C-alpha cells in the first residue's frame, strides 16, 4: 500500500542490563517515535529487552563487499590478537 513512503529503520535491543545493544532487525515507520513503538511491538513482545535504539537505515555507512580483502584479510594470520592465551578469571561472564 504505502510501504514505499515509510523509511526503513534498523533496530537495536539491549536484552538486559550490562550487555550492549545488539542488532535484531529492521522495520518501516513514518518517524523515529513511531519506529521506537513499532520496535517495541515487533521485537520485544516476549520480554526480549530493556532498552531499544532505532536508527534510520540510511544513516548507516556500511563496508562494501568489494573491500572485503583489504578490510578483513590482514587480520586472518594474527592469532596473537585473540585473547586465547590468557586464563579467564572465574566469575567473568561477558568477556
Amino acid at each position, binding site marked *: 500500500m504505502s510501504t514505499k513512503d*515509510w523509511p526503513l529503520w534498523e533496530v537495536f535491543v539491549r536484552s538486559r542490563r550490562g550487555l550492549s545493544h545488539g542488532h535484531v532487525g529492521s522495520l518501516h515507520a513514518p518517524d523515529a*517515535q513511531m519506529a521506537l*513503538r*513499532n520496535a517495541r*511491538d*515487533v521485537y520485544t*513482545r516476549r520480554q526480549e529487552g530493556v532498552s531499544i535504539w532505532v536508527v534510520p537505515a540510511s544513516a548507516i555507512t556500511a563496508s562494501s563487499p568489494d573491500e572485503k580483502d583489504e578490510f578483513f584479510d590482514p587480520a586472518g594470520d594474527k592469532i596473537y590478537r585473540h585473547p586465547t592465551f590468557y586464563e579467564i578469571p572465574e566469575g567473568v561472564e561477558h568477556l
Partner: protein
Amino acid sequence: MNTDLFAYTLRLGDDALVAAQRMGEWIANAPQLEEDVALGNIGLDQLGQARSLLSYAAEIEGAGRTEDDLAYLRDEREFTNLLICERPNGDFAVTIARLLYFATYQHLLYDALQGSSDETLSGVAGKAVKEVAYHVDHATQWVLRLGDGTEESHRRMQAGLDQLWPYTGEMLASDDLVGRLAGVAVDPSGFADEWHRRVRDVIETSTCAAPEASYQHTGGRDGRHTEAMGYLLAELQHVARSHPGATW
C-alpha cells in the same frame, strides 16, 4: 451469588472481549505489517483482560460456567458491553479514534479500580493499567500524526472522532449498579471531567476540532445493542457453537 458483583465484572469483561474482537479484525488488514502487529498486541492485551474478568465472573456466579461459556454461549441481549466497543472498525482513523476514547476510559477506570476493596478486581486492574497506558500512547501518536498530517488524513481523523463521539457519553455515565457497589466498583462519572480534558488535549494538539456535544446513544449496559453486534457475535461464536465442547 453476589449478583451485583457478577454483573459488574461481566460488563467490564464484555467491554474488553468485544474490543479485542474488533482489534483482531485488523490482523492482516492493517496499513503496514508493523501496525498489524501493534493492533494485534493491543487486541491480545484486551483479550487477556477479558479472560481474567470473565473467569472471575464465572467464579462469582458459581453455576459451573466457564469463561468460554460466557464468551461463546451467551446471546446478544446478555452482553453488557459499551456500544462504542462493538461499532464497526471503519477506516484506520475510526479505529484509532475509538482506541483514543476507549483506552483513555479504560486507563482512568483501571487506575481507580486498583483501589477496589475486591482483591481480584484490584489485581486485574493493576496489571491492565500498564497495558492500557500503552494503548493510549499508541492512539495518541496516531491521532497527532493523522490530524496534523495531510489534508486527507486530517479529514479522515476528524470524521472518525466525530463519528464515535455520540458513543462516549455512555462510557462516562453512572448507574445504579456502580452506586450499589461503592468501594468495589468505580463510578465513571467521577473521572468524566478528566477524560474530557485528556481527550480534548490530544484532539486539539492534533489540529482537529473537539467534537461538539451531540445526541448520545445508550443501551449497551442493558443489553440493547446496535445493529453491528449480531454480526460481531456470529463471527466470535460460530466455531464454538458449531463444534460444542471441541478442544485443541
